[in-house]
């Protein structure tokens, strides 16, 4: 018998966290991630675990800090403007080397924006706090992957003792798909961290504390940087589709990749050599894999639901080796994949000047 079940993105993330052994969840309502918080409210208390609807996102992430410093798997989730409120503590957790999972269900911006699905959280997810730090950002494109990456996020957070972000969007959060969950981990079965604050009975006191001198903080930063380099080398994740012989490679992350995938299949049926490259980790960016994927391409087309945040990374990593086109929508509007397909055909016909005209038709503009 199949154990697959129809699950909404928000609930899949919540259930995956519970199964990963999340002992404490803290959240504050914000659309489009409310079902995640509500799922936790429904289940955590019954399981003898902790759920608090806090008075703010700031308290939620700082309570995550607390449960993490006490040695438990812990999570918060939020969206859009409220993610900005969490950045101070995400940076501080990175400083204090505390694991923790933060789910960002991207919505419209800037500022309060709106409640609709966008990808405007791309830049902020990589680190909106002060100082030199990095966080692994995992960006799923399906409900199944959202569940899988949530479980992985707990492992990576612990492995590197650093916060980890799951970067979803409103579309994924509200989407229902047939999925299968991973095994259930009992929080009590997880080994106790040697850094956890448990009371110093029978051992030396533990201090999760700042480095106050210049020398100490520099040494600490160097150690953190070495760790981030190791993460950057070992944790890149991506998916490539038909990139081996692709003349144009579409680069896209998260839910818009689902439409792009369809376009690639259709193009191939028509004999058009289109490929797709999807970063699954936004940080660390799979730069070498991208360069490999575009080896035979004559152009890259980046699709995103923002004004070109991923495009900037793609341009940076491809260093002008080939033209990088951007096509995006904002505010909760969706990319019209037929428009994209006709633009790509312009490029393949060697007539990319038509691109600009097409942009104008849609009221879009080209970045840079």
């Amino acid at each position, binding site marked *: 018998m199949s154990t697959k079940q129809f699950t909404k993105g928000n609930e899949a993330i919540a259930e995956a966290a519970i199964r990963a052994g999340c002992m404490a969840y803290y959240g504050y309502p914000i659309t489009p991630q409310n079902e995640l918080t509500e799922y936790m409210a429904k289940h955590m208390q019954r399981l003898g675990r902790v759920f608090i609807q806090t008075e703010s996102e700031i*308290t939620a992430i700082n309570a995550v800090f607390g449960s993490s410093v*006490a040695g438990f798997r812990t999570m918060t989730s939020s969206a859009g403007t409220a993610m900005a409120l969490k950045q101070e503590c995400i940076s501080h957790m990175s400083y204090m080397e505390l694991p923790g999972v933060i789910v960002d269900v991207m919505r419209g911006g800037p500022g309060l924006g709106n409640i609709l699905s966008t990808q405007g959280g791309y830049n902020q997810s990589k680190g909106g706090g002060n100082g030199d730090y990095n966080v692994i950002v995992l960006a799923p494109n399906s409900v199944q992957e959202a569940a899988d990456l949530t479980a992985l996020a707990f492992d990576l957070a612990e492995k590197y003792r650093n916060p980890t972000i799951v970067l979803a969007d409103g579309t994924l959060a509200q989407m229902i798909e047939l999925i299968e969950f991973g095994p259930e981990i009992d929080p009590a079965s997880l080994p106790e961290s040697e850094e956890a*604050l448990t009371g110093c009975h029978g051992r030396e006191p533990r201090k999760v504390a700042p480095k106050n001198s210049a020398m100490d903080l520099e040494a600490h930063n160097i150690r953190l940087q070495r760790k981030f380099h190791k993460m950057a080398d070992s944790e890149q994740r991506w998916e490539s589709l038909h990139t081996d012989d692709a003349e144009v490679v579409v680069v896209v992350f998260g839910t818009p990749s689902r439409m792009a995938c369809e376009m690639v299949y259709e193009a191939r049926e028509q004999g058009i050599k289109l490929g797709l490259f999807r970063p699954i980790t936004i940080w660390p960016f799979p730069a070498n894999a991208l360069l490999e994927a575009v080896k035979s391409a004559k152009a890259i087309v980046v699709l995103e639901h923002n004004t070109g945040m991923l495009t900037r990374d793609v341009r940076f990593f491809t260093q002008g080796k080939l033209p990088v086109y951007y096509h995006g929508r904002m505010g909760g509007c969706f990319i019209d994949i037929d428009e994209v397909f006709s633009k790509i055909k312009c490029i393949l016909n060697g007539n990319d000047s038509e691109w600009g005209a097409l942009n104008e038709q849609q009221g879009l503009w080209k970045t840079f």
Partner: protein
Amino acid sequence: MSSKVYGRPSSLNDKVFTYCPGCGHGIVHRLLAETLDEMEITGDTIGVAYVGCGAMLYDLFNIDFAFPLHGRAPAVATGIKRVRPEKIVFTYQGDGDLAAIGTTEIVHAASRGENLTTFFVNNGTYGMTGGQMAPTTLIGQKSSTCVDGRDADYHGRPIRMSEMLAQLDGVCYVERVTIDTPKHINDAKNAIKKAFVNQQEKKGFSMVEIISPCPIGWGYNPVDAYAHIKEEVLPFYSLGVFKDR
């Protein structure tokens, strides 16, 4: 045969206190350490520091300590206590920390009735950043950001956190004490102990506000700073138990 009647509490390590002469933080630390010793809870206690002068207690105590962001100690303590309910968890906070940037966190931790103990060291100023006006700064008191003295119309009025928090149903115990005389120091210690016992008895949120001198921030020598507590501070911040249930 001689026996030791006074010494360094074993909850403190050997590190030297680096506070200014006459600073109240050192006295409060000592009372806290003596209480941990007497209650024999040193090994079962997790402290949450704050951002301010007294924060150095994380480094001075022989207990586990977490260092939160400015104002967020009650949120961090909540996160610790909820997953380790068998441990004693306390926050130690200043008036800038608790009554300004962290007002939301303290009000809601208290309102939820988190089974925590908070020590609120009110010195009427931002000691660490150089003596700026705090929400607790008295009318007429001078500071680097109200150079002619706090003006009620221009700067707003000081806030009485103990009275305010006592209104919350989740709170079991709030007392304001001070450390200007030996008698008051003894009273303060009793209050500190009671706030810990409440947590052991799972009674909910307890807070002890300690009126404490900051001679540097106030612009007094230590002796005058202590006299100032009696003459100027206590008339506004009256001592007493605001809630005990």
